[in-house]
């Protein structure tokens, strides 16, 4: 019996199903119509989610990927459909999120002629993808899709683009599934160097004041237990980056808080007091290091990362270990010895208490006056038993919710860390809820970012996605306003914002909403929001000129945080 003859578009369907795809976020258009036509026959094979803008398609795929660990998929048309995905692709590149973006392309015969909706998508996306490839023949579909999923999801994950020419979608081919489990020029899981592991263990054993820096790599490598085993055996306090917040539960006795510009005082201060930094699955972003010239100069540095190019990129490393943290951490654990570091570990609590006294107490229990972002975040965290997935937009809403949420489960924070994409939150929350329907998904957004992809309320309406949207409305582009207040002499250029009546917008999309202005109403409104599985917009009027504190000012030393 001969092999089946099918179209390139149908070959894409078979390939996606073979990869286990259960949800696709997309938007049709001219150059991708044969693919959408093929999808029509597969409506029962996977969920097909029509977004309202292609940027939303990629952010939704990111939310899907980051909450579940699976590869997210978007399918869009050529030209504007493709260019609208660029922000999401860049975001996925910087935050190591596995997504495959399939874009239509004009037929091979007219490539390079400025045909209608033709752009050089491979050329545009090469610098912002792990791999970008044009499929020009139907017989290449199975191979290209298999390779795309393999590259996106292995090693340090990232976005892959497939630029699918129209002729390849319609032409017929023999189809046979292709399995890709290696690429000769690509080493996704480098073998850790044994002598470096021994050197690292020796440094840890002789260290009096070690500090573990935990990044998203621990989540991506699913090394939560391996991390705990190491820090518990050796008694190492551990701080998490923004993207690594749920890599270690907030209430773990060795968890000392969050790093970074708006992180906790304890770990930031002690970064410049420790004698050993052990960084795992993090990249020493400038938001974490502050002024790199004065960053942890007194300390030896061990850097564990799966990506060779991260070593010595921002911070000089004494012992690099290139490998998968799930493999490396147990190798170190085996060689470390228990040490009494009680005094050192307690010192974090001492500085965190200073922060609480100066900032936290007021943020969480202001008593009177307008509602504050921090108290809203903490209340919702507690109301969800600290087990919700927090999705944030970018800005003050991001920092306040991530600071005051508590994390008990892995993959519980989805936020745009590297690119800082306003508009990320709403579509990412949709993707997360679709991937993890059994979990409560709480989006924290601001009045600025919410409106950047507000059209995705249409997707929520159509799909009935039970996302809990918490809009912290201060009538400002709050983070920029904060910087203007602190560093630009209170000159509020372009930051005050006239807002629409959000309850009417929600109503227009058939989404229940409630506006909360008074503190006394908050608990009841949260109860109402969480009482059903339906989508809900909780619109909270918060203090207009509130600042995220503490803060390491731009260019300052990591330990020198300001509190007001």
């Amino acid at each position, binding site marked *: 019996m001969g092999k089946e003859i099918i179209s390139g578009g149908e070959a894409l369907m078979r390939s996606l199903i073979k990869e286990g795809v259960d949800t696709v976020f997309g938007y049709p258009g001219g150059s991708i119509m044969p693919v959408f036509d093929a999808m029509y026959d597969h409506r029962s094979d996977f969920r097909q989610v029509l977004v309202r803008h292609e940027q939303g398609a990629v952010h939704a795929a990111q939310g899907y990927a980051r909450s579940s660990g699976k590869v997210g998929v978007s399918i869009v048309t050529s030209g504007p459909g493709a260019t609208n995905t660029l922000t999401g692709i860049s975001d996925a590149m910087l935050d190591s999120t596995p997504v495959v973006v399939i874009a239509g392309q004009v037929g091979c015969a007219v490539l390079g002629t400025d045909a209608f909706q033709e752009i050089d998508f491979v*050329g545009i996306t*090469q*610098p912002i993808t792990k791999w970008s490839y044009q499929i020009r023949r139907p017989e290449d579909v199975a191979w290209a899709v298999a390779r795309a999923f393999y590259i996106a999801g292995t090693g340090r994950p990232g976005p892959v683009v497939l630029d699918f020419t129209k002729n390849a979608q319609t032409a017929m081919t023999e189809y046979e599934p292709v399995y890709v489990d290696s690429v000769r*020029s690509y080493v996704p899981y480098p*073998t850790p160097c044994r002598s470096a592991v021994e050197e690292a263990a020796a440094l840890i054993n002789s260290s009096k004041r070690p500090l573990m820096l935990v990044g998203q790599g621990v989540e991506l490598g699913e090394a939560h237990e391996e991390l705990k085993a190491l820090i518990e055996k050796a008694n190492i306090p551990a701080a998490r980056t923004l993207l690594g917040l749920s890599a270690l539960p907030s209430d773990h006795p060795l968890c000392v808080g969050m790093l970074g510009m708006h992180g906790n005082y304890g770990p930031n201060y002690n970064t410049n007091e420790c004698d050993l930094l052990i960084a795992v699955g993090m990249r020493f972003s400038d938001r974490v290091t502050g002024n790199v010239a004065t960053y942890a100069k007194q300390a030896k540095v061990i850097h564990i990362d799966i990506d060779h190019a991260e070593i010595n990129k921002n911070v000089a490393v004494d012992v690099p270990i290139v490998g998968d943290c799930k493999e490396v951490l147990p190798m170190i654990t085996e060689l470390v010895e228990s040490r009494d570091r009680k005094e050192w570990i307690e010192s974090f609590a001492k500085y965190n208490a200073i922060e609480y006294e100066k900032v936290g107490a007021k943020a969480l229990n202001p008593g009177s006056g307008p509602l504050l972002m921090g108290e809203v975040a903490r209340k919702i965290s507690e109301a969800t038993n600290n087990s919700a997935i927090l999705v944030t937009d970018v800005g003050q809403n991001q920092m306040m919710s991530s600071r005051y949420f508590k994390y008990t489960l892995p993959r519980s924070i989805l936020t745009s860390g590297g690119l800082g994409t306003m508009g990320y939150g709403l579509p990412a929350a949709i993707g997360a809820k679709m991937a993890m329907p059994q979990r409560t998904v709480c989006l924290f957004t601001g009045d600025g970012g919410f409106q950047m992809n507000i059209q995705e309320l249409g997707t929520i309406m159509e799909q009935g996605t039970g996302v809990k949207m918490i809009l912290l409305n201060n009538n400002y582009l709050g983070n920029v306003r904060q910087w203007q207040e602190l560093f630009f002499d209170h000159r509020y250029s372009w930051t005050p914002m006239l807002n629409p009546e959000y309850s009417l917008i929600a109503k227009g999309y058939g989404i229940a909403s409630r506006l909360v202005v008074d503190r006394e109403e908050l608990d009841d409104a949260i109860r109402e929001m969480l009482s059903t599985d339906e989508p809900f917009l909780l619109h909270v009027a918060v203090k207009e000129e509130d600042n995220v504190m503490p803060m390491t000012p731009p260019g300052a030393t990591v330990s020198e945080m300001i509190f007001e």
Partner: protein
Amino acid sequence: MDKKLYTIIIYTENIAGMLNQVTAEFTRRMMNIDTITASSSSVEGVHRYTITLWGEEESIEKVTKRIEKKVDVLKADYYVDSEIFFQEVALYKLSTPKIMENNQISRLIRHSAAHVIEVNANYTVVEMTGSTDDILELYDKFVALQCMQQFVKSGRVAVPRDSVENLTELLFDEDYKRKPTKNRE
């Protein structure tokens, strides 16, 4: 820090768009490539780029690692001149009437490492392979003798001085690839 001339040797899969991916890493940092040579290598299906540019070691090392990280790049290493053998090739198109007028010109050609590859009534094409300095020195002399019509010089080709010769093994050895870019000998 001192700026030095570095030579980066890169092995990639022979696919469309690869050079663009490599050069984009320089564009992003506004690092100006001095010369670039791209051609097939001794391994079938593998292309070899030789790129020279001025820079500080720290930034050269970082950009080299970022290039090697690309999925379809097999290997990337950087070298200073003392670590490699290197050559360039130049073509000088000279005016034949000027050469006939001034016998200093033909004497210069005979006493240099250059070869004449074409002579006709209008022009003479001279080829020379050598170091950049030798090539430019000859260029200056032809210019001084007022016979130069056109000049072109290739990018550098280079082979490392180290004695590892089994390229196939080298390119596909995972452990070797993960060693620091420097000190691989």
